């Protein structure tokens, strides 16, 4: 067990390192120094005062050789220092803490809502394939998976939010202030976020249930004289749920990414909006920090999923 753990951990670290390096290279691959890009307001902007460029270069430590910069960069990361934001002149870690929390809340809510609905859909569909119920559910899923998150977000916010007024489409209350109100405001955004998740979970559950139903041990269970419900719970559902858990875990990272657009639509103060503002403001340290955080979260969740799997399935080598 420990060997497996260490191996997965090792691979995870390698991947994180790879991500971090890729971001570094991306940032430094832009023609002209990043400082120039910052002052120009993006690649291909107008001319800038070379003196200002030099000054910014020095300040950001960009005049040193690439390798040195790389090593310093890695060193900082290991100590948890993501650099300082240019715009806010504060450590990146401080800036992203609160918005990250807000975004994570959205994702967690979306996972809960989406997970439950997706499972139910998948079970209904998988247990009665070809039925009217199955076709309706599959059709809904097809549409849900195809509709981009922001379109769903827009429609929810305009129709459910504005027109019907059931839930607010704008506004935010910190969870520490009033949790109930927080949920009230978080509902529509997380619902919008959950659509894609519902679709994926629904699909995977359906396929899994469909294939497990046909397995021999289900027939053995029936042959014992067990009731349909019992057979389903212990021999279909329990076995079908494994791949679903894996997929759900892997989707966590993807959901995190999808929040960017949804937060735009609902004006939710999450990390997505922070990223967008950082990009528009050419605040590269902030952009870099956020991208790395996203990637690390994804890697950590897939690591957790990998660790969880042997617990679910005794056949997997520990």
């Amino acid at each position, binding site marked *: 067990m420990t060997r497996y753990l260490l191996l997965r951990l090792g691979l995870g670290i390698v991947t994180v390192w790879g991500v971090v390096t890729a971001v570094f290279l991306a940032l430094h691959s832009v023609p002209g120094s990043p400082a120039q890009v910052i002052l120009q307001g993006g690649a291909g902007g107008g001319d800038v005062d070379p003196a200002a460029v030099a000054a910014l270069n020095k300040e950001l430590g960009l005049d040193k050789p690439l390798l040195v910069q790389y090593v310093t960069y890695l060193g900082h990361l290991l100590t948890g220092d993501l650099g300082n934001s240019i715009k806010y002149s504060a450590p990146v870690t401080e800036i992203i803490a609160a918005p990250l929390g807000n975004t994570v809340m959205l994702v967690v809510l979306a996972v809960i809502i989406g997970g439950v609905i997706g499972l139910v859909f998948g079970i209904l569909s998988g247990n009665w394939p070809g039925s009217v119920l199955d076709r309706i559910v599959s059709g809904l899923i097809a*549409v849900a998976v195809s509709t981009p998150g922001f379109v769903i977000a827009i429609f929810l916010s305009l129709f459910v939010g504005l027109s019907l007024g059931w839930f607010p489409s704008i506004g935010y209350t910190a969870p520490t202030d009033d949790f109930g109100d927080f949920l009230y405001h978080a509902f529509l955004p997380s619902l919008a976020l959950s659509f894609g998740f519902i679709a994926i979970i629904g699909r995977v559950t359906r396929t899994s249930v469909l294939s497990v139903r046909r397995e021999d041990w289900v027939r053995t269970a029936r042959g014992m004289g067990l009731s349909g419900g019992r057979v389903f719970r212990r021999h279909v559902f329990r076995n079908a749920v494994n791949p679903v858990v894996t997929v759900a875990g892997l989707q966590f990272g993807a959901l995190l990414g999808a929040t960017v657009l949804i937060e735009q639509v609902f004006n939710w103060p999450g990390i997505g909006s922070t990223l967008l503002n950082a990009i528009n403001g050419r605040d590269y340290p902030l952009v870099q920090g956020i991208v790395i955080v996203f990637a690390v979260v994804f890697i950590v969740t897939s690591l957790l999923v990998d660790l969880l799997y042997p617990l679910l399935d005794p056949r997997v080598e520990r």
Partner: protein
Amino acid sequence: MTRTFRTLWQKSSPGLFITTCVVFLAVCFIFIYPAVTSVDPLAQDIPHAFAPVGTAGHLLGTDNLGRDTFVRLVVGLRTELIVCAAGTLIAAIIGTLIGILAAYFRGVTDLALMRVVDIFLAFPHLVFAMLIVSLYGAGDLTVVAVCAIAFFPSFARLTYGEVLSLRQALYVESAELFGGSHWQIIRGPLLRGVGPLLLAQAFLTLAFAVGLESGLSFLGLGITPPRPSLGLMIASGQQYFTQDASQLLIPSITLVVLLVVLGYVADWVRDLLDPRGVTRRRRLRRGDAVTRTEVISLREEVGA
């Protein structure tokens, strides 16, 4: 030609076949129409802004600057399709190559290549796209590059898994025995085995690419305005929702329909190219006439 058509018809369900034909025709239209007519998607006509659907000369109305919505839709779709298809194609080529090489040669190649894939998989697409755009600026080429980099990992993973299991198949092993060189085997049974899945995945990826691009252009980071794109149209539609709801609805519905349809085409392609898959048996339950081979396979399944 008619024989291929008829075999295609027989092999799939009517619904999918018709959908695909319609799609094919629509795509042709999108490409031909702007070429043969002289409409200009950028032509503004402010006095006639927000013309309702069905106005003479403006089939789907006009937007906030009086530009014809229908024309913008068609041109926007064309640009998007070209850009996203290019990105998907590049992603498919790179990803498939990586997947096949890693799964076939295994060992160090496997470890190294799949680590690279994992690294790129760790980036959520949109975030990654935003990063690239912020560095290199928005534009068509950037979008193509972004799509290629964002989607090659899924192709790599797909081919990797498929080739891993195909390698175990006896007919692949025996190809080696009968004197096949590595290249021959890759080109032959492996590519043939992987082909159908690849094609289906390509359509799915195209759908994702369109989704990604529209998200980017919604944020203003995709295809450069004032050139039209679905995302941009949706963004402005949202902005002026209170004045004219149709300007939001039309591009949104188009986008959704496009993506749903691409998903169906992907299914259809997979059905078509898989000689005896699960889908065959699924159709049996809908009450289709049962052919002899299908009953035989069903009985084989039961072990009569």
